């Protein structure tokens, strides 16, 4: 009988740990990290596309040197970023990541404006292929960012609401995660119409 009570005690502690949200918080934190990996993968994919894209554009519009250099430089900056979980733990690194990727985004959109002036380039099959890949990648980045933000929201909610708030302040002491903010200038509609 005594043994049984001991067993029951252990089981009830397990149940209580579940009830206080300990596991939930851990799970949501892991989910955020996994979602962050998706975000990085999507951005990496974009960075990988750029050299080929620049080459293709050069074939038709070599004298648009300024735009092309801007892209290459922005990509180099993205390539030098620290990656992985550390970015999430360091708000400055996170900020830097957002800025560098944002700079690459705007360099790319400037390129797409330039491209409009070159009908032969637009008709080129190689360029069309690249543009589809880039479109797909931008879409993936968007999806990954939105999902990351949703994961962050779920995590932040779990450490701010009872009973998770108590568990976190006593046991886990995890910081709040930062969501992506809309990129600067995104609130204004772009002036250029394709």
């Amino acid at each position, binding site marked *: 009988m005594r043994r049984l009570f001991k067993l029951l005690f252990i089981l009830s502690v397990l149940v209580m740990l579940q009830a206080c949200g300990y596991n939930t918080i851990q799970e949501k934190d892991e989910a955020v990290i996994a979602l962050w990996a998706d975000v990085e993968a999507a951005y990496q994919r974009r960075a990988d596309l750029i050299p080929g894209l620049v080459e293709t554009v050069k074939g038709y519009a070599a004298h648009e040197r300024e735009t092309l250099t801007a892209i290459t430089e922005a990509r180099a900056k993205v390539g030098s970023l620290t990656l992985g979980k550390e970015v999430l733990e360091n708000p400055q690194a996170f900020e830097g990541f957002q800025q560098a990727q944002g700079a690459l985004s705007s360099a790319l959109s400037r390129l797409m404006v330039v491209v409009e002036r070159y009908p032969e380039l637009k008709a080129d099959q190689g360029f069309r292929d690249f543009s589809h890949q880039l479109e797909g990648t931008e879409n993936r980045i968007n*999806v990954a960012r939105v999902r990351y933000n949703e994961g962050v929201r779920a995590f932040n909610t779990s450490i701010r609401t009872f009973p998770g708030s108590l568990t976190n302040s006593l046991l886990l002491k995890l910081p709040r995660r930062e969501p992506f903010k809309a990129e600067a200038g995104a609130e204004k509609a772009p002036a250029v119409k*394709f």
Partner: protein
Amino acid sequence: MLSYSLLGRTALHHRSNPIGGGFLLFLLPLFSVAQGFEVPAYRGYVNDQADLISDHVERQLERLLQSFDESDSTQVAVLTLPSLGGIPIEEASLQVAEKWGIGRRGKDNGVLLLVGREERRMRLEVGRGLEATLTDLLAGRIIDQVLTPAFREGRYDEGFQRAIGAVIAATRGEYQADPRPRGARGTPGISSYLIFFGILVIFLGVLGRVARLLGGALLLPVMTYLGSAGSVVWWVLLLLIPAGALLGMVLPLFLAGTHRYGHRGMPLGGLPGGMLGLGGGRSFGGSSGFGGFGGGRFGGGGASGGW
């Protein structure tokens, strides 16, 4: 269900040409209010709500996609809509694909071809498991070289037939259908619950009266917790404590009617009605008809275009 309000700048998007449109994606704010788009219910692989496909081609495509699903387990769905309800096609197609769950769970091998008649936009949404075979590049080419020219000339039937053919050609052999054991599509959740339930009953049978009460009160929530891999909300478990206590008292009494067991414990044969076997007994009777989509996931891969 998650909702993805990816984009807000819609008016601009409709008018954009097939090449430039997607590049605007990253200029748009992350969170915006979802507008009037509701994911329609599916009726089969081919859902021609905009009435672009003729009836006999629709039936032919339905059969083709059914047999492809059966042989390769890859699910290809078609949806045409009279209007996209004011949201960009990238967002609409992701919502539809995720809500329908095209493709098999774990394989994520689904493809959605979405066409918006009013906006004159189309998109191939590619599930995560197929992104390496049906790449954005290939999806883009199918749209540029097959769908766009055919749609421009109003040859919708041909466009759909050839595009679906190309999608199937690209993805064939990537996945194989699972061999169908009995009850292949039965949910594993139910059978594992029943097993836990069976263990609970056996365990209670061995215990004395007070221990039954306590044991039931603890084991039911604990087993539910373990059985569901931690995804149960804690208050549900709390609710299960009195329920378990009650079961602990009552259940052995019922069983005593069907099978007399002594103080030595209850043999497995004492379980009522083949309780442990229930989970495996579900079968869907062969391969007749559309069995629904399988819960595949999407990550935004694919390509869009317009005509």
